[in-house]
Each structure stands twice: as structure tokens, then as C-alpha cells.
């Protein structure tokens, strides 16, 4: 009973109805751009969220800014430009490829290449080691040992 009461209280708590405000669009195309943009702009207060995810005051203000600029007929690129002029490339979750962001874009490829080179060197060296280290003498010896073991196992069965 207590559980049920808590459940009901949680369902109607203020947090559960604190949804992102509704923005009215006459133009479906603009609404689409709006939804793309708010999911590509970073909320700078809560750095790992987009302004669509966050309900921080700044995120609300930036959503309002995006909305108003769309109504004024600004394009997606113009709005992204407006934001980067003020907050830098960091505001974009999908930053453009520049000298400054080069490491960000090329870093993973560089690491992948390093990994491949290490892998190739490693497997090659191992192959060489196996081929050279076993002499004919040792091979014969190991064959003899194997035969001995087989013999012992067979004997064990007979007992």
C-alpha cells in the first residue's frame, strides 16, 4: 500500500511533468531544422548534454534563440554560425574540420593505424621466433616424449 502511494506521488511529481517547452511552428520544414539544431548544439553549462536534453536556463535561452532565428527566416548554417561566433566550435556537437579540430577528427584514425602497425609487427616477430628456435634435435626429442606419454596412457588403460 505504501509502495503504491509512493508510486502515485512520483508519477505526478513536478519532475515528471517538467517537460521541454512546446514551440509552435507553422512550417513543418522549420520545425525539422529546429529539432536537428537543438540536438546538435551543446549546453555549455551541463557540458555533456545538448540543449534539447537540458533544462538549464542557458539551454532554454539558446532554444528560444534558435526558435526566433528560424522564425526570422535564418537558415541552419546561419544559426550554427551565430552560435560559434559567440561560444566557439565547442558549442557544436558536430564541429567543422579545421586545423584546430584536426586532432579531434583524425585522432581515432591515427590510433587505428598505430594499432594495425603494432599488430603486424607483433605477429610477424612471433612467427619468426617459432620457426628458428626449434632445432631438428629438439623436434626429435619432443616426438620421442610424445610417444612415451602415449605409451604410458595405453598402459594405464590395461590396468
Amino acid at each position: 500500500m505504501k509502495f503504491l502511494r509512493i508510486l502515485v506521488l512520483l508519477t505526478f511529481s513536478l519532475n515528471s511533468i517538467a517537460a521541454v517547452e512546446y514551440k509552435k511552428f507553422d512550417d513543418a520544414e522549420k520545425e525539422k531544422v529546429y529539432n536537428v539544431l537543438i540536438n546538435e548544439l551543446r549546453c555549455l553549462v551541463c557540458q555533456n548534454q545538448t540543449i534539447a536534453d537540458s533544462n538549464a536556463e542557458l539551454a532554454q535561452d539558446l532554444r528560444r534563440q534558435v526558435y526566433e532565428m528560424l522564425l526570422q527566416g535564418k537558415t541552419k548554417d546561419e544559426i550554427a554560425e551565430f552560435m560559434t561566433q559567440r561560444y566557439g566550435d565547442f558549442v557544436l556537437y558536430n564541429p567543422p574540420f579545421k586545423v584546430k579540430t584536426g586532432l579531434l577528427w583524425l585522432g581515432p584514425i591515427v590510433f587505428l593505424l598505430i594499432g594495425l602497425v603494432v599488430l603486424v609487427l607483433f605477429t610477424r616477430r612471433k612467427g619468426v621466433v617459432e620457426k628458428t628456435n626449434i632445432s631438428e634435435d629438439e623436434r626429435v626429442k619432443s616426438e620421442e616424449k610424445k610417444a612415451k606419454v602415449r605409451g604410458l596412457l595405453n598402459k594405464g588403460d590395461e590396468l
Partner: protein
Amino acid sequence: MLKYLTPLALFIVMAVFLALGLKLNPRDIPSPLINLPAPNFALPVLSNASQTLKNDEFLGEVWLLNVWASWCVSCRAEHPVFNQLARKKLVTIVGLNYKDEPIAAKQWLSQLGNPYNVSVMDLEGRTGIDYGVYGVPETFVIDKKGIIRYKHTGPVTMQDVQEILLPLITKLKAEV
């Protein structure tokens, strides 16, 4: 020998990167506005809302724009620092009262002291967006030509004033 040195070298490289990562402040996002003209504003003055103040009225002098609000906890921490800086009368300090209740803001100033030559109200945070404000308090140093020369994010400490702000202000004042 190489067998033992390679892991050591890798470890040192990793340690250096991790040490750098520890020292960096993720909140400190470089402002793209440095060395660009301060964005224009025309905002009502806090002490007299019928009066409008524009940024270009400060052309010809070095000034600080300090973004503050009565709801901002860190602003309270840096407030004594600005009070002390104001007493030196070295530089014009303009307050940008960001998304605040005018009554609460006025009360805040009368309780804690008013280091600002003038404070303007950015009720909707629009000027804040123009200045790329994302974490109050923020402080901009603007030169005689109206160019932003430095931005400090977060509370200014006495050490920041002594080591960064005052030398910069002296330097900018000497510029023509």
C-alpha cells in the same frame, strides 16, 4: 634493452597526457570573442530603469564588464575582490546584471557593497548570449577601442587581480 625501454616510454607519454588532463579546467572554454569588438548592447540601468546605457559610451577608456546575479553563489565569493578593486579607482567597472530580479539585485548591492560604476540589466539573457556567457560570474576586459582583450570565467580571486587583471589594465591604459 629496447624491450624494457618501450613500455617505460609509453608509460611516460601516457603520464604526461594524464597530468595535462588533470590540470586543464573543462569549464574554461576559450572565447572566440577575444580580440574582437565587444558586442553592442543598449540596456536599462539597474538604479534607474528609464535610462539606457550603450557599450560605445565607454569608448576611449579601459573598462571591465562583470557579469553577475544575486542568485549566483560564486558571485558572492568574488564580490569582496571587486569591492577592493573598485576602491583603487583604477578602472571603470560595469556590471551586467544577468537574468536577475531588479529588486533582489538592488538589495544585494546595498547589503554587500556596490563596486560598479554602473550596472545594466539583461533581464532575458540576450546580451549574455551575445557575449557567450555560459557560467556566471564572467569578467571581460575591454580596451579603449572597444575590443575584448581578455575573458575570465568563474569567480575572480585576489591573485587573478594582482597577476592578470592589474598588469593587463596598466598595459591597455598605456595604449593609444
